[in-house]
């Protein structure tokens, strides 16, 4: 009887020991402080947009010059102006310019530049890495988590969709003069200049 009681006591002690080591408590303030240290992609994107992307857009090559170079000497154009965090064929360019609106649909504004180059400016599918990668200012080795980089691209695009597009989408019409700056993607193995679609970061209807 005594032996049985000892066995039960030992079993209870063992269970309590395991249970106490399975559960731990943390202060809510500590958990919140840890969460606050997690990468804040929205904050990074806002800072990147104002301190790096818009200044880079201001220094971007003019659309007429860049498109002419892409036609005459694509290797030089890619080497001089393109960037990308990935290795491979997909590269990104910054560009700026002015043009006259020739058509508008739900996805794009179609313009003709001063030198009669046709370009599309995206007003629906503002997604992807163009605005993150084109200036070539973000270093992949500064990020240990790949998803942080993906989230930066998503957040920059989100700002453009929320703040840059709405004032233009509701007003723009054929014949308007536009000033734009942004980024576009191009496959260096299979260059198709007709498919260029600029993701804008600056978009204004000139008065």
């Amino acid at each position, binding site marked *: 009887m005594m032996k049985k009681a000892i066995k039960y006591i030992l079993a209870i002690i063992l269970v309590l020991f395991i249970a106490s080591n399975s559960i731990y408590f943390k202060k809510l303030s500590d958990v919140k402080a840890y969460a606050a240290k997690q990468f804040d992609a929205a904050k990074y994107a806002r800072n990147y947009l104002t301190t790096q992307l818009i200044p880079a857009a201001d220094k971007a090559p003019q659309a007429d010059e860049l498109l002419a170079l892409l036609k005459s000497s694509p290797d030089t154009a890619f080497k001089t102006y393109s960037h990308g965090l*990935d290795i491979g064929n997909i590269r990104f360019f910054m560009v700026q310019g002015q043009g006259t609106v020739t058509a508008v649909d739900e996805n794009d504004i179609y313009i003709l530049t001063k030198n009669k180059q046709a370009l599309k400016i995206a007003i629906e599918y503002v997604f992807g890495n163009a605005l993150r990668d084109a200036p070539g200012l973000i270093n992949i*080795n500064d990020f240990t988590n790949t998803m942080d980089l993906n989230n930066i691209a998503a957040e920059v695009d989100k700002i453009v969709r929320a703040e840059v597009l709405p004032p233009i989408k509701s007003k723009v019409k054929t014949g308007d003069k536009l000033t734009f700056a942004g980024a576009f993607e191009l496959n260096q193995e299979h260059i198709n200049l007709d498919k260029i679609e600029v993701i804008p970061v600056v978009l204004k209807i000139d008065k």
Partner: protein
Amino acid sequence: MMKYFKILLLVMLAFASCQNRSGSTKQKKIAIIVSTLNNPWFVFLAQTAAARAKTLGYESKIFDSQNNTALETDHFENAIADGYNAILFNPTDANGSVVNVQKAKKAGVPVFCMDREVNSPDATSQIFSDSYSGCVSLAKDFVQTLNKKGNYVELLGLVADNNTWARSKGFHSLVDYYPGLKMVAQQSADFDRNKGLEVMESILQAHPNIDAVFAGNDAMAMGAYQALVAAGKADHVKVFGFDGAEDAIQAIKDKKVSATAMQFPKVIAQTAADDADAYFKGKRDFPKKLPVAVELVTYDNVNDYIAYGKK
């Protein structure tokens, strides 16, 4: 005179030993440990890595983990014990494979991850497809093809693999902005063609009215397509895959599959083998992560591509 002769002899001996050492780099062995050889994509990845290693003058051996982390651990232990000098590694599980990478690091063996990531900074470098961005491009085509409305099914890959979630998150980062597109089912089919077929058959029982399938790889997309053919729905339902596998490229040409995202296993495998070679020659500053761009393949540009890469 004798003194000078001795010095000359010593210098010659030193040169000879240097030559032996540089010659010994050619004797180095590279282990190629791959998650599964039951998928032609990984067979291509492993064989390309082995071919590159051979071109660089190294002996190599391919190990098949059969999607089993325990077997993968055995392979690591054997590779380390057998004196392999570097491991080109396609992990089975982003978390479960970490312990193997750590073991190799402890043994002084560099690990270059191919295509799949491990959640550890202990890998020497990780070279992988930019699955997230590839799926953003694929998602844009998906939304345009479906005209922003319809019911769809998502087939996920292995739930423990980072690529599964990178692809899914990339896809949803765009598609979820369109409320007209409703995901009626989301299930894992483990990147496997037969499971893709089985899972799709069972989903079609519960949701017969679907307009599209987004599969996390081409094997599952082709399995889903087979299920759609059997159900008499293949003409209506649009199928989207990921990989750029041979049968998917042909299926795009035949208008059976709408689109895929082309990965470049050749670039990944060759970069990993080149990195191992550079490591043997003294390089140490490798980028921890090196994404490789993924390209959208549709009926419009399919003739620019062949399986696993560009023409």
